[in-house]
């Protein structure tokens, strides 16, 4: 999956904005939005929030988890625990990137948040590499991966799945007469 497609899915998440315009309720195919009143917070998908923000039509309120204290706690927990702790949001990395790149003036302590999220990400990816390594080493047939986000899965998807398939083919080629998983070279 292309990372831009994961980002696309992240843009469906809702954020609160404070608009500076008024507009009636709007009936999108995917659901209703608004009404919009100046100064009154309203929930919109991130794709719309970013567009409005760029046109200076709103202020974006950072999601609750996007907070230095909360993220510091999560970072400590992530470092302490061996397993994956629940991610701040299923799209924490993408949302951090999108909101900090396009609305950093609305997010208090943006730089600290950037660093914290990067630390959490790095810790989790290191764990992910370790578990992928042991999965392959132990020739395991099943792994439970709760709390992993789509973007995290996406970073190892191709490499891990290709390796597993390749090893599977090599192993089944060892068994004479087995046509399963044979290399198809047409």
């Amino acid at each position: 999956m292309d990372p831009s497609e994961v980002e696309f899915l992240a843009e469906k998440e809702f954020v609160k904005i404070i608009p500076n315009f008024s507009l009636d309720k709007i009936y999108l195919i995917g659901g209703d939005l608004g009404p919009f009143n100046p100064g009154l917070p309203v929930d919109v998908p991130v794709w719309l929030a970013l567009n409005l923000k760029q046109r200076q039509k709103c202020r974006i309120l950072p999601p609750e988890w996007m907070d230095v204290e909360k993220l510091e706690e999560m970072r400590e927990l992530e470092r302490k625990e061996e397993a994956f702790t629940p991610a701040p949001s299923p799209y924490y990395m993408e949302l951090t990137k999108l909101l900090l790149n396009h609305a950093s003036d609305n997010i208090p302590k943006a730089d600290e948040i950037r660093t914290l999220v990067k630390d959490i990400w790095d810790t989790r990816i290191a764990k992910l590499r370790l578990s992928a390594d042991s999965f392959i080493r132990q020739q395991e047939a099943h792994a439970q991966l709760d709390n992993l986000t789509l973007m995290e899965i996406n970073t190892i998807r191709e490499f891990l799945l290709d390796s597993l398939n390749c090893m599977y083919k090599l192993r089944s080629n060892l068994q004479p007469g087995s046509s399963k998983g044979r290399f198809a070279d047409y």
Partner: protein
Amino acid sequence: MFCEKAIELIRELHRMTDGQLPAFNEDGLRQVLQEMEALYEQNQADVNEAKTVGRADLIPSIKLRHSCLLRNQRCIVAYLYDRLLRIRALRWEYGSVLPANVRFHMSAEEVQWFGQYKKSLASFMRSIGGEEGLDITQDMKPPKSLYIQVRCLKDHGEFEIDDGTVILLKKNSQVRTGCFLAVSFLMLQ
């Protein structure tokens, strides 16, 4: 050595990394077909002799030649099929009209296959949903609702961008516009 030429065809494609299309090797193809013809004729003769005179000692060489024939067939089909896959990919990369330097590398039959592929794809796309269908060769990347900065090179006057906003495009002024469509339209001006 038998099958050497057939393998050379495969290698030729293998050397072209990232799906490029080398010139169709008509000569190589003909040489493999000639080798096949020779192998087949020798086998016919040997089979006859084995049957009539009962020369069982010929059987191993008959088998060997037959394996070579199968391998040659396999390599040729693989060569041709892999080229089709590359040509197919070009339709998605360049659209329905291929650049001259690519067409130059295709055989007449490949051009014909490509023409039929385009037709099948077009009627598939026309048949999706309602009247006009859906061009699935568009929208290859997720849309971005973000804005970019453009500088006007000449006076254009009022211009309505996709979100309904009307902007004034004056020479050398800088504006922000939202949509790729709007921008590509401006670039065409």
